[in-house]
């Protein structure tokens, strides 16, 4: 009798905890954070966690990519389309170092991601053990936060912090390194979500006076221009943003990561700013009287030469990250805080306006760009196919409903310029880091996160071959992504620069390519190659109609250039149309 009593008491005390291994705890933490899919690659130091993934495979789906870099980009694609935290997992040493490019990409593009790496046993740390590398040291400059776990008991709290930090405030990547002995060690598991960290303030308070000052400037402005960035998408401020621009009648331009926050067809959308952006918003950046930046960071590819950037304008900066204020462009009014709540608070302070004359200027400059650039891109009269007309066909067949995952280079600029978007979180591309090889694995993650969406990946022949092995992942997981390779047999953007600034010395930019169709078919993916204009329409239709994954290679003009272009060091208003 007494014995049972004791047992009952013990059971009561441990009702909220259970004794499990560190590796099982990792899985339970992931489940508690709502993770149902993760991307990775097994190896020695992470095997205990993989053993648990095997046991929990009905609850959590592990996607074996063909390279750890692919795992990070897939996790990024997953995060970018869903707004949730993407998770990648790898072993120690080379497994961990292979994550670095994706982590750096997520850091500069503010993508929420948690990476878990195995590490050699804690007793071996620092001994140059097999597959030991200081991944915490290596990843420090490219992570929002990182931490090494050497005791199983640390796992719940550290992983809870990891997810909280990755997602809150300005999102970013977090890396957690777990020694093998901590994975094996048993402890009393209990999970509590992280609700706050005393040294970390994810969202700064919005100062009412700065909001008022911003509203005053906007209300007085005759020629206001908004440039919005990914901040609108990350804070899910799309509706609040639309309400603000519609009430105040302000032309709104976007950065490469901001596009899709409002539909492309929105009448106040005046296009992309920056190096290969549209003519009107770039030129008029240097004519506006109030420049309103929202959730963007004045990247050098957006501003061109800072010495001659919007010097005539009062600058208002809505931003969640205080370190971005005055980093590149001095602001007159800084409104710190989350874009959604700031814009909601701004709306009632704004006067209704239409700025018709100002809008006409944008239209007039658009006409010039259309005549000189857009017409030739979308309705070419020359024989060879252009990248722009491929995008036009994709727009027609997807009706602007697709998520476009682009790689890096000429095709990326063309995709961002010409793709139509009806829904937010639909332009997935490597903006800040410019990571070639991003698109194919990112498309896998995007499609798996949003299986109901059409996901079209667009890459050049260069970047495609940087992560081409992920075709294996697509085949094994049966991921119905549409893969478009715009093949010009060149590293096109570098070649364009060589043509314009290096006297056509095409140093190592010409590619001798394999039979891409045969490679896709080797992975049992339906594939087609198009070389003539008359075949393009049907090929794109066939691709979009296909239920499974599909590969389409389009041979495009070999030496086509992307215009408009702001040459490096030039002012935004000196943008070239040819």
């Amino acid at each position, binding site marked *: 009798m007494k014995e049972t009593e004791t047992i009952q008491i013990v059971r009561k005390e441990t009702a909220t905890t259970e004794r499990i291994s560190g590796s099982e705890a990792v899985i339970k933490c992931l489940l508690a954070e709502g993770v149902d899919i993760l991307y990775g690659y097994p190896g020695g130091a992470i095997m205990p966690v993989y053993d648990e993934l095997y046991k929990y495979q009905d609850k959590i789906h592990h996607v074996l990519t063909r390279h750890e870099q692919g795992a990070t980009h897939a996790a990024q694609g997953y995060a970018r389309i869903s707004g949730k935290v993407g998770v990648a997992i790898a072993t120690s040493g080379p497994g961990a170092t292979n994550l670095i490019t994706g982590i750096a990409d997520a850091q500069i593009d503010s993508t929420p991601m948690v990476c878990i790496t195995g590490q050699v046993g804690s007793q071996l740390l620092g001994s140059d053990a097999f597959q030991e590398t200081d991944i*915490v*040291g290596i990843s*420090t*400059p490219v992570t*929002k*936060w*990182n*931490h*090494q776990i050497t005791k199983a008991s640390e796992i719940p709290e550290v992983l809870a912090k990891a997810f909280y*930090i990755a997602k809150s405030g300005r999102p970013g990547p977090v890396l957690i390194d777990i020694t093998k002995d901590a994975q094996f060690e048993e402890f009393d598991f209990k999970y509590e979500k992280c609700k706050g*960290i*005393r*040294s*970390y303030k994810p969202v700064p308070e919005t100062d009412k006076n700065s909001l008022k000052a911003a509203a005053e400037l906007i209300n007085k402005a005759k020629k206001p221009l908004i440039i919005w960035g990914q901040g609108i998408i990350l804070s899910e401020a799309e509706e609040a943003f639309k309400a603000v621009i519609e009430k105040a009648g302000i032309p709104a331009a976007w950065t490469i990561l901001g596009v899709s926050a409002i539909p492309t067809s929105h009448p106040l959308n005046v296009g992309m700013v920056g190096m290969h952006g549209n003519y009107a918003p770039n030129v008029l950046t240097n004519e506006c009287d109030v420049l309103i930046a929202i959730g963007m960071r004045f990247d050098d590819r957006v501003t061109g030469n800072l010495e001659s950037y919007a010097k005539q304008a009062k600058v208002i900066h809505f931003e969640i*990250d*205080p*370190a*971005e*204020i*005055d*980093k590149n462009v001095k602001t007159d009014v800084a409104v710190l805080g989350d874009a959604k709540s700031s814009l909601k608070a701004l709306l009632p302070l704004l006067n209704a306006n239409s700025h018709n004359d100002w809008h006409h200027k944008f239209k007039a400059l658009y006409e010039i760009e259309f005549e000189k650039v857009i017409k030739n891109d979308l309705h070419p009269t020359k024989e060879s196919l252009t990248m722009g007309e491929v995008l036009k066909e994709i727009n027609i067949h997807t009706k602007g409903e697709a998520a476009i995952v682009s790689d890096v280079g000429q095709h990326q600029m063309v995709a961002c310029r010409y793709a139509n978007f009806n829904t937010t979180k639909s332009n997935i591309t490597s903006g800040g880091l410019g990571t070639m090889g991003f698109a194919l694995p990112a498309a896998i993650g995007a499609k798996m996160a949003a299986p109901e969406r059409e996901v079209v990946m667009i890459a050049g022949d260069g970047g495609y071959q940087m992560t081409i092995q992920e075709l294996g992942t697509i085949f094994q997981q049966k991921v119905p992504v549409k893969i478009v390779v715009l093949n010009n047999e060149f590293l096109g953007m570098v070649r364009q620069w060589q043509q314009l600034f290096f006297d056509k010395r095409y140093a190592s930019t010409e590619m001798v390519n394999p039979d891409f169709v045969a490679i896709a078919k080797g992975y049992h993916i339906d594939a087609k190659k198009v070389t003539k204009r008359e075949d393009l329409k049907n090929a794109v239709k066939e691709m979009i109609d296909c239920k499974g994954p599909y590969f389409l290679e389009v041979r495009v003009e070999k030496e086509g250039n992307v215009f408009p272009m702001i040459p490096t060091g030039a002012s935004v208003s000196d943008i070239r149309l040819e």
Partner: protein
Amino acid sequence: MSTEKNIYTVTIYTENNIGLLNRISAIFQRRHINIESINSSVSEIENVSKWTLVVKLHVDSMKRIIGQIEKQVEVIKAYYHTDEETIYQESCLFKIKSDLLFDERQIQNIIKESNARIVTVNKVFFVLEKSGRKEEIELLYRELSVFGIMQFTRSGRVAVTKNEMKISTMLKA
């Protein structure tokens, strides 16, 4: 924009965690900025570390870097101050042959005048400690180096500010 570089004392209050030194120093390294001196210790608040760095920078760069430092999850607060806004000291140790103490009378005068303190003496060497501003320490170094110095070491700057730093109230909030 001003192009003049100033000496700034950077004070950082942080959690006491492994790897934070790497994270903070990387912010400077990435921008090709040399850290003139660095000191990390406990602060007036329990479980909070206080770092004191000295850097030479333009004021605009200084502000931007403070932003980058404060952005780190485990940093509670970072400040920068000019020399006029702080009370600061460095400390140094000289190891000198004991014979010189008796053979070179001048040394005793130097020790007295500089307010240096003899920490220990044995048959072979004696150790001199001096706290003060960098210039005072450099002067003492120059004076003693004539006689020969066996070993010399100088600490990083430690500093307190003339104005209040409201860390404790921030942590309570």
